[in-house]
């Protein structure tokens, strides 16, 4: 024990003293945390932005656009779900492709997907951003592990009938993995839903309005 044998002033035995010490330490800790937060805030935002740009570049046509899609987005309202943020790739002023992130529940937890779709509805690319599927079985959906996810490239709802958007076990077009059916099934479902969302967004002429809105925003950006 510290200070054993040394007579301590009596106030150091009062609960209020303990509370005061703890309070002071909490204030010190709080100050340190605020300083740390402020010092790292900008860098963390920058890193998140870089991550987004990198994942969008994976699923958009390389060299086929000249804007920064991560800054050119619209939020598509989706009923009670949080709105879907759609990033637009443009060449000149002409939109060439859309990209968006969405999550689909897999075998254990959500599988987060990012996909890019051309204006004609063809898939440019699909990537899995994060997942918690079984390593060695379900993780073949990562491009680093297997090229399965490249099988979506170039497909669209017109090239492949809606009913065929399923794994082979369910009478569809896509391979399941040995030992893991739920994971690829979830990814196929997510991709199909993404295409439906994209078609809905285009068909409802919603996007046209959104395009005008966002291009006026862009005008305002550059006075």
């Amino acid at each position, binding site marked *: 024990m*510290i200070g054993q044998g040394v007579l301590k002033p009596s106030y150091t035995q009062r609960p209020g003293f*303990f509370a005061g010490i*703890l309070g002071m*330490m909490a204030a010190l800790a709080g100050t340190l*945390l605020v300083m*740390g937060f402020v010092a790292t805030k900008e860098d*963390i935002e920058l890193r998140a932005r870089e991550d987004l740009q990198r994942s969008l570049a994976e699923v958009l046509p390389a060299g086929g656009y000249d804007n920064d899609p991560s800054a050119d987005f619209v939020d598509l309202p989706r009923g009670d779900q949080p709105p879907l943020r759609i990033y637009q790739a443009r060449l000149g002023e002409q939109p060439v492709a859309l990209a968006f992130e969405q999550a689909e529940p897999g075998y254990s937890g959500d599988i987060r997907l990012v996909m890019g779709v051309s204006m004609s509805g063809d898939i440019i690319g699909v990537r899995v951003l994060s997942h918690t599927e079984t*390593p*060695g*079985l379900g993780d073949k959906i990562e491009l680093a592990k297997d090229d399965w996810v490249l099988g979506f490239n170039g497909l669209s709802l017109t090239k492949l009938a809606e009913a065929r958007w399923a794994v082979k076990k369910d009478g569809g077009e896509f391979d399941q993995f040995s030992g893991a059916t739920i994971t690829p099934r979830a990814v196929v479902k997510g991709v199909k839903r993404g295409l439906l969302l994209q078609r809905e967004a285009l068909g409802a002429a919603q996007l046209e309005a959104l395009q005008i809105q966002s291009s006026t925003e862009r005008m305002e950006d550059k006075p």
Partner: protein
Amino acid sequence: MSCADNKPRYRELWGEGLWNNNVVFSQMLALCPLLAVTGTATNGLGMGLVSLAVFVIANLLVSMLRGVIPSEVRIPAFVLLIATVVTLVDLMMNAWLHELHKVLGLFIPLIVTNCAILGRAEAYAYKNPVLPSVVDGLAMGLGFTLALVVLGASREIVGSGTLFANAHLLLGSSFAFLETTLIPNYGGFLLMILPPGAFIMLGFIVAGKRVLDRRLKADHSTQTPQPMSC
């Protein structure tokens, strides 16, 4: 630690931290992060180094403030200090070691609950001056890192046939040479990568250490009778 005199013996501290009183292999503490991240040696090394930093800083702070903190409220004070250090490390890694943060991100806040760090603050840093406390933090942290790397490496070799896969994400591309494939065209042994494999492998390693300890002890006692240390 059980010594009555307060003169720090640094050799003893290192021996305690790395082997005799190793956080994982002897004290059986901090198993949660251990089991969660040791799918590969690289992840184990990353988690070990982050924990090492927290061990050292937490011991340093506790030792510096040990005259201020009354023993009645020491535990909440330690928890507060450790949580602050971990949060700061988390923020800084997110900003400046982003690739590693993406791999370990989920587990870094959990270092707060690493009972071994609280244990060192309570058992050592609160009772000893700054320098020995920092050395103790280093030794215990290195012992923990060692345990994570050994367990990660053995699970990775048996589970996927590789060693230090993705080391370049952690240490930069100059360390890509560490990445080796020990067993080419290996189908993998899934159980070892999953959490149960961690328990099984840990059991083998701890058993191995016990056997080794007993052998060493038997050798010692037959050759030189050790003077009773404290």
